[in-house]
């Protein structure tokens, strides 16, 4: 019987963390999962990581559920190269498409797939300890020589495809996990940070939740999607939009080119160019965003203009 193998958690951050020893299901020594790997969790409060000291033969709770921390979700949102999968040798991460989350392959030695790939679901930290009970009478699969060469350990074992939840649902819950619900009663502000986004020339404004993005890249591409319909124009008369040269990066080009500049109003009421300060500082101080025509940006601080030119 193939027992579910325990694998490392995929690196959630670029911090180097000690790799977790994947351990056999049966009694081969204690299970030394490094649960301190919970520092991978980017900021969701209230999650504990109880020390697992279960001794022998306990299959770690495979409580892999769809929720995940925001940092995780940011990377998914951006589908950017934020994820670090170091030392994976020949494995590739399956990105984005099809809703596949990263799953390092080639984990197992012995020339054939061990059948358990990690996917980057969150682990059930804080979930109840698996009862240290009956170990089913099966011989465990021999532990592969090649340990998963992932940079970051998992707090728990992961089994690909378990629990059986559709990728779409997993991704959806990961990206929009419940906010800190301490005081969620009625306050739209708790745990989310909606700011208005205006664009010069657009007939209406939008709102974005800055907390759902992890970087300027993410924000920028999200804004580009939101406002692309204004810059690119309507469908042609027989309904099919012309495709000459217009693509999704057009607004991006516009933003990073010279036509538009992304600015924000900070706590002091000043209009600043987006991008100067670290992301966290930006989200702390940003009150609203404005996609401004460059011609108007002349009124900004000279450094802003210079930055503008330098970005081209």
């Amino acid at each position, binding site marked *: *019987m*193939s027992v*579910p193998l325990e694998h490392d958690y995929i690196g959630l951050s670029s911090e180097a963390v000690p790799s977790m020893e994947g351990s056999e299901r049966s009694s081969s020594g204690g299970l030394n999962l490094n649960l301190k790997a919970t520092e991978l969790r980017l900021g*969701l409060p209230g999650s504990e990581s109880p020390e697992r000291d279960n001794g022998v033969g306990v*299959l770690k*709770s*495979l409580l892999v*559920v*769809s*929720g995940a*921390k925001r940092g995780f979700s940011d990377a998914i949102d951006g589908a950017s190269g934020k994820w670090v999968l170091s030392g994976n040798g*020949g494995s590739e991460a*399956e990105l984005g*498409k099809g*809703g*596949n*989350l990263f799953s390092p*392959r*080639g984990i*197992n030695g012995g*020339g*054939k*797939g061990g*059948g358990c790939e990690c*996917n980057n679901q*969150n682990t*059930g*930290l*804080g*979930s*109840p300890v*698996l009862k240290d*009970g*009956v170990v*089913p009478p*099966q011989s465990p699969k021999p532990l592969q020589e090649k340990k998963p060469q992932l940079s970051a350990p998992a707090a728990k074992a992961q*089994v*690909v*495809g378990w*629990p*059986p*939840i*559709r*990728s*779409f649902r997993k991704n959806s*819950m990961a990206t*929009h996990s*419940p906010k800190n*619900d301490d005081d969620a*009663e009625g306050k*739209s502000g708790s745990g989310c940070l909606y700011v208005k986004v205006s664009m010069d020339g657009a*007939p209406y404004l939008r709102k974005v939740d800055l907390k759902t993005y992890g970087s300027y890249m993410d924000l920028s591409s999200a804004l580009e*999607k*939101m406002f692309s*319909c204004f810059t690119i124009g309507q*469908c042609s008369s027989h*309904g*099919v*939009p012309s495709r000459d040269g217009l693509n*999704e990066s057009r607004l991006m080009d516009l933003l990073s080119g010279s036509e538009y500049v992304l600015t924000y109003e900070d706590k002091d009421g000043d209009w600043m160019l987006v991008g100067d300060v670290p992301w966290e500082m930006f989200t702390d101080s940003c009150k609203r965003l404005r996609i401004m025509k460059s011609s108007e940006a002349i009124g900004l601080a000279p450094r802003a203009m210079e930055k503008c030119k330098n970005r081209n």
Partner: protein
Amino acid sequence: MMNYFPDEVLEHVFDFVTSHRDRNAVSLVCKLWYRVERFSRQRVFIGNCYAISPERLIDRFPGVKALTLKGKPHFADFNLVPQDWGGYVQPWIEALARSRIGLEELRLKRMVVSDESLDVLSRSFTNFKSLVLVSCEGFTTDGLEAIAANCRFLRELDLQENEIEEKKNLWLGCFPDSCTSLVSLNFACLKEINLVALERLVARNPNLKSLKLNRAVPLEALQRILMRAPQLVDLGTGSFVLDRDSDDSETYRKLRGTILKCRSIRNLSGFLEVAPRCLPAIYPICLNLTYLNLSYAAGIHGSELIKLIRLCGKLQRLWILDYIGDKGLEIVASTCKDLQELRVFPSDPFGAGHAAVTETGLVAISSGCPKLNSLLYFCQQMTNAALIAVAKNCPNFIRFRLCILDPTKPDPVTMQPLDEGFGAIVQSSKRLRRLSLSGLLTDRVFLYIGMYAEQLEMLSIAFAGESDKGMLYVLNGCKKLRKLEIRDSPFGDMALLRDVGKYETMRSLWMSSCDVTLGGCKTLAKQMPRLNVEIINENDQMEFAHEDSQKVEKMYLYRTLVGPRKDAPEFVWTLV
């Protein structure tokens, strides 16, 4: 005697036979009936797109108007099937277009759909009315533009949980002004939408009955939309949050007023983001709801969730997150006496800790809701005693899917496997058609399944069983088995090869991380030419030693009339 009737009479009689299974049966009676049936069949269901070719479909059913196609195996939902495995709709659409079939409805599940396919679809069938895509991928909003722009009589565009690349935000604006025939629109799986185009579209489509918005539609816009569409029966809200600095009370008041006018809403879903204080606006709808889907509503929990549930006395189908907890399920049990279907999905474990559900909640539901016939339940643990109680309280299960988050967890009270519990379920629910197992299970549970689950059509097994005997019990006992999917269970060649003819009576068999070997699969393929036996070997192919004794990581076999498929990728080997 029927032979003395002219064909038209036969045809008219057959018109009353609507289920495809019944029509299949009709077609087997005699050659005359076969002939009349095939020319009059309008709705065709193809459960495996590789079991038959489009040409043969068209040849047999030239009058087909509505087609359902399914592609990838079910376990593809859980990342067990690699990208590019297959399931392309393009050849189907091309063939239908070439043959000038009057296609009006297309429903696809787990298929790869390209923008080009959508473009060809939109331009080839003048009466095209309905497109439903479930768990599909491979297309972008460009494809949606083509559908919107070219399908003049479109009634239904239903996008369920697809992976769609969003390029420009224009497609909704591509519906021409003359498009007034929409009845159903679902774009909940998209991230963006053009709000202005949406409001205009809703305004000029008075027959709209089903509308599912995405998270880009804020509350203010929802209110305006509902004002224009009070006739809605089926509503999926988008974001249910108010802007912090907009005039909250005014918007809320307007919303309340508008919702009071929506007297027809029976199905409610969405709430992708929620400001709980706005929830009371929907209380008036709750009284008449028959279907409530809060499985994406991570923002509704605790007392707000309970308040909502208490109002839904007429609920027949409920989908929720396990935030509801056992206590919440008790309230469901006491409130929703007509409940037939319950799905409890797992949520973020970093919630309140007591968010998850256990056997207690399920037992409560079973005793309060005897009409329950369909269950999907993700839980922390389950006991035999609970399952036995559930079996006694609810003998009407058609679908029973239990997913214990730790897949090999025994009964925590007795530390026994859950064989007896599941045994009770299959014994008591004589009409059970679909079953998914989890928890610690030995061969015994399969003995029970083989003995009692006479109507079972689909069985999902994971991390269960002890020996080949388990699989044999099932193959031998479940005469109506159509789909069997097994992962991480100790079933090998002996079980696989015992009754090879069985697989031609089934749609498909999936086995991954089991003990079947390459040699076993080869033997099977040789003996059964009308099966495609696919070995999916996504790992380093060089390392796969091609030795017959080597265990096969993933095997998918299915009956087919058209031999090995020609579009298989490199990592899929079809054995012959």
